[in-house]
């Protein structure tokens, strides 16, 4: 049996699954204490279950989002080793930043060495200012992490109680500014996040739950709970990931679909292309700062069932705020839900009050309640469909750096619009017809997010880079560096090495991965020619365990 729990901003949802069947669901208001919410939802779905039958629990929580938004962390200083390139004056990381001498180039060669005296002086200054948490981030550190490691060694010697995070681990992709932000967030959240993880583990132990526990990431993969403290930021924005995986499991595989989660004041949109949730090309934007966190390409539109409707001049507009429930449900102001009630697209609330709400908006404009409701409907539908179209366009316009990539670019259009979340029912058919799609509101749509958490699968990734001229290879995720034989090393060996590393990592994480499940997601080979001779080859490849869902849910759309 599997359990999925999604802690959202307003509600916490949970489901219990067995062989793809949904046995129990729970929906409770989220409390200030996230742990309390998790346990309450868990207790409901586990009521009549022998916990020894429970194989797996997956959580999707807002804990990281809340920590970052509320800035509930100690101050963090950044030690940057940017070297030449972009002007250092252009960096704005909104915290204490110290620039250190030193530089590494694109092939991982040292251009400028570190200056130990300068490092020591910097550390003394930080100590005086009371910093105990530091991120060390070098430009091109994923190609050579020795500078970051050397600075960390010095800190370990002089200030053994400091918490140190290294850029090449937190942000292993090529993008220095994003690596800095990702490392900062990792450094800031690790301790409070660990505390949260510990309290979850204690609470589960108290209930004698021994099932494997995972946490959902923004890219729809899961991580074993205890390993999630290594990269806490990856668990940010797991809510939309949960809903999207839920949609994926509730509809037929291989479809191109739009998943729309209409909530109280926001609507989250994500795309599933040929059965795979679309990842954002770069990384998540967190509180306005760009990171390297892999995430779904999700767009949020500030409109929902409880948005405030107002009349401004001759126009009806909505405001992205909530003053309470819909007018027809006893709320203070007209909302889109009132429009749905007037149009008979929902059974919720009092029809008379809904008419009253629409009339208060429409009468001064010479419109009847039904006309006003229609107007509101089209406003909501238009703002959502415009965003959907923009997302497809953005996907088509993602850059391509190879001829074949550019030539295979084509227009893709969805065939299905799937609605989940509380406010979907009334709007989805109209949104779908506007997009020329079929509308589906799957059974269990209100808890699709918890279902998604329950069926999400672990994903592990290994990126290998080998430079035969310099005679070494390098694993991006853990900074491991090994020697290779310049002459005999080839693409087959590179792949073999990467696969082995992935299986090792899976074993370390206690995951069963069969070699056939390993996908190659990136593969690049360049001959290095100097003069007219081949002096070496560069191999860059990424392998990962297959994305997808653990079990499809046994029921189609209605």
């Amino acid at each position: 049996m599997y359990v999925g729990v999604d802690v959202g901003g307003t509600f916490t949802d949970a489901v219990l699954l067995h062989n793809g069947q949904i046995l129990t669901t729970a929906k409770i208001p989220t409390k200030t204490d996230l742990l309390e919410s998790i346990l309450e939802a868990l207790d409901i779905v586990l009521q009549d279950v022998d916990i020894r039958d429970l194989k797996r629990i997956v959580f999707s929580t807002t804990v990281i989002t809340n920590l970052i938004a509320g800035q509930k962390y100690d101050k963090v200083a950044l030690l940057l080793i940017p070297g030449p390139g972009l002007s250092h004056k252009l960096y704005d990381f909104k915290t204490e930043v110290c620039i250190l001498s030193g530089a590494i180039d694109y092939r991982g060669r040292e251009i400028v060495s570190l200056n130990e005296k300068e490092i020591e002086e910097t550390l003394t200054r930080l100590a005086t200012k009371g910093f105990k948490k530091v991120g060390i981030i070098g430009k091109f550190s994923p190609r050579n992490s020795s500078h970051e490691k050397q600075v960390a060694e010095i800190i370990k010697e002089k200030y053994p109680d400091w918490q140190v995070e290294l850029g090449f681990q937190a942000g292993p992709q090529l993008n220095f500014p994003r690596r800095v932000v990702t490392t900062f967030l990792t450094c800031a959240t690790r301790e409070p996040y660990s505390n949260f993880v510990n309290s979850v583990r204690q609470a589960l132990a108290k209930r004698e739950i021994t099932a494997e526990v995972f946490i959902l990431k923004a890219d729809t993969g899961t991580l074993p709970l205890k390993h999630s403290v290594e990269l806490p930021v990856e668990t940010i924005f797991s809510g939309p990931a949960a809903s999207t995986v839920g949609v994926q499991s509730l509809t037929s595989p291989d479809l191109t679909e739009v998943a729309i989660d209409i909530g109280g004041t926001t609507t989250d949109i994500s795309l599933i292309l040929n059965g795979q949730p679309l990842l954002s090309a770069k990384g998540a934007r967190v509180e306005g700062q760009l990171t390297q966190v892999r995430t779904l390409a999700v767009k949020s539109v500030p409109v929902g069932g409880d948005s405030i409707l107002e009349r401004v001049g001759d126009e009806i507009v909505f405001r992205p705020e909530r003053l309470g429930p819909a007018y027809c449900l006893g709320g203070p102001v007209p909302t889109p839900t009132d429009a749905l009630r007037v149009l008979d697209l929902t059974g919720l609330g009092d029809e008379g009050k809904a008419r009253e709400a629409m009339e208060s908006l429409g009468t001064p404009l010479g419109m009847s309640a039904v006309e006003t409701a229609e107007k509101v409907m089209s406003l909501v539908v238009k703002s959502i469909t415009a965003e959907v179209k923009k997302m497809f366009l953005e996907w088509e316009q993602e850059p391509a750096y190879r001829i074949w990539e550019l030539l295979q670019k084509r227009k893709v259009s969805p065939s299905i619009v799937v609605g989940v979340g509380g406010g979907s029912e009334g709007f989805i058919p109209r949104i779908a017809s506007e997009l020329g799609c079929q509308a589906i509101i799957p059974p269990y749509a209100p808890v699709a997010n918890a279902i998604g958490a329950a069926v999400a699968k672990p994903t592990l990734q290994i990126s290998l880079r080998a430079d035969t001229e310099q005679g070494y290879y390098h694993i991006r995720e853990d900074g491991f560096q090994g020697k290779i034989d310049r002459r005999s090393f080839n693409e087959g060996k590179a792949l073999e090495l990467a696969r082995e590393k992935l299986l090792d990592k899976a074993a370390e994480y206690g995951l069963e991965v069969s070699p056939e499940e390993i996908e190659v997601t990136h593969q690049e080979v360049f001959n290095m020619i100097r003069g007219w001779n081949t002096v070496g080859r560069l191999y860059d490849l990424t392998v990962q365990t297959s994305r997808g869902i653990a079990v499809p849910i046994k029921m189609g759309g209605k």
Partner: protein
Amino acid sequence: MRNSSDKKTGLIFFPAFDWAISPTHPEREERLLYTRDQIFEEGIMDLPQISEYVSVLAKTHDIAMTQFCVPRVEDRVTEAHLIAAGAAILLADEIVSGRLKNGFALVRPPGHHAMRVVHGNRGFCNINNEAIMVDYLRRRHGIKRVAIIDTDVHHGDGTQDIFWHDPDVLFISFHQDGRTIFPGTGFADELGGPTAYARTLNIPLPLGTTDESMLYILDNLILPILSDFKPDFIVNSAGQDNHYTDPLGSMKVTAQGYARLTEKLRPDLAVLEGGYAIETALPYVNMGIILALAGLDYSYVREPDLQTFRESSDLTGYIHRMVNSLLQQWEKRDQALPNPKLIKGNYYERVKRIFYDTDGFIEEQVEKLRICDNCPGYLAIDTEVNHGYGLSDGKALCISVPFTACSSCRKEAASFYEEAKKRKNYRQVYLQDKPSDVFLGYNSVNGQEWRSEG
């Protein structure tokens, strides 16, 4: 197009990682690999001043309206060429429409050695990305005057050839002296055709020229001439092989020099040309150019082995004298009389031999420009490739009617085309009618005619 508002710099990065002339050729897959690493690692694409675009394929019509590909466009270009030309067109479109401040087509393959008639690859180029884009702007956006500043170490002989007779396109190229480098042209006395005198200007540079003289030429020759000429659009053929580490060139220009040049020149669109120091120059020079275009501080961009270069006072003096003499040519641009030796009946005529270094053959051309009092006159080029041993693909006739042609020249060119079709002594006959944006091609072997229009 001089609008220094808060608009962004458009960037198309198309390294064509799956295209090479041959595995060990300088134009190979690896060329922009380290540049990619550098601009990705610096987070350039995330900067609020930068907007990254994805290229589109140029249409064969857009190429046919500028260059005569023999026998047809499809035979002379691959998708990689269409993507590179498409990048320049797309960015130019966005800039002229006011959606971008300026742009950089950081693309390969390059184009500035591709001439008006194309029989194959010359100097790593098949089609001329800048020329195709410039003519596109004139046809689609009514742009009148364009300046192309070529800062590659090799003379931009293809671009020069295409606009030689065009008084509305100013072409200025500085490059290593043609006596010491491919393509062996670009001397100071190459000053444009009889109707476009001094609209072509060449500054051959001695070996070892540094940032100092390059910027002297910019400040004292190029910028003053640009302010006289008042172009609607400025293009920079941004070759990077003047860099002190380039394996093909022998200049001493640095990334800072290139950035400063870009900042002062303020091109609307820069298009990458050559540059083959793929590790030691390109990552840094490209960074410098991008930052300068975006109006950002580029002072931290420096090569790992940067040194201070000094020129001899002889070199500096030579440059100063050449700048002065070219300024004088520019001053008398409207009084210069055509060389009477060029006049053959109703035409100015010149005979050209063009060497295709990549494919190893010679093209022979007779180029005739109709003398007309009312317009720059249409152009008719007789072309034939000689593979040696008397082997030839047969002759082709290429007729090009300029944008500002008078109606009688247009009529005459059209009937010239029809007559040549009948005469059968040309294997192909082509007509580019730029005022109406129509291209006609005729194959006399099978009697087929094809037509495209914009």
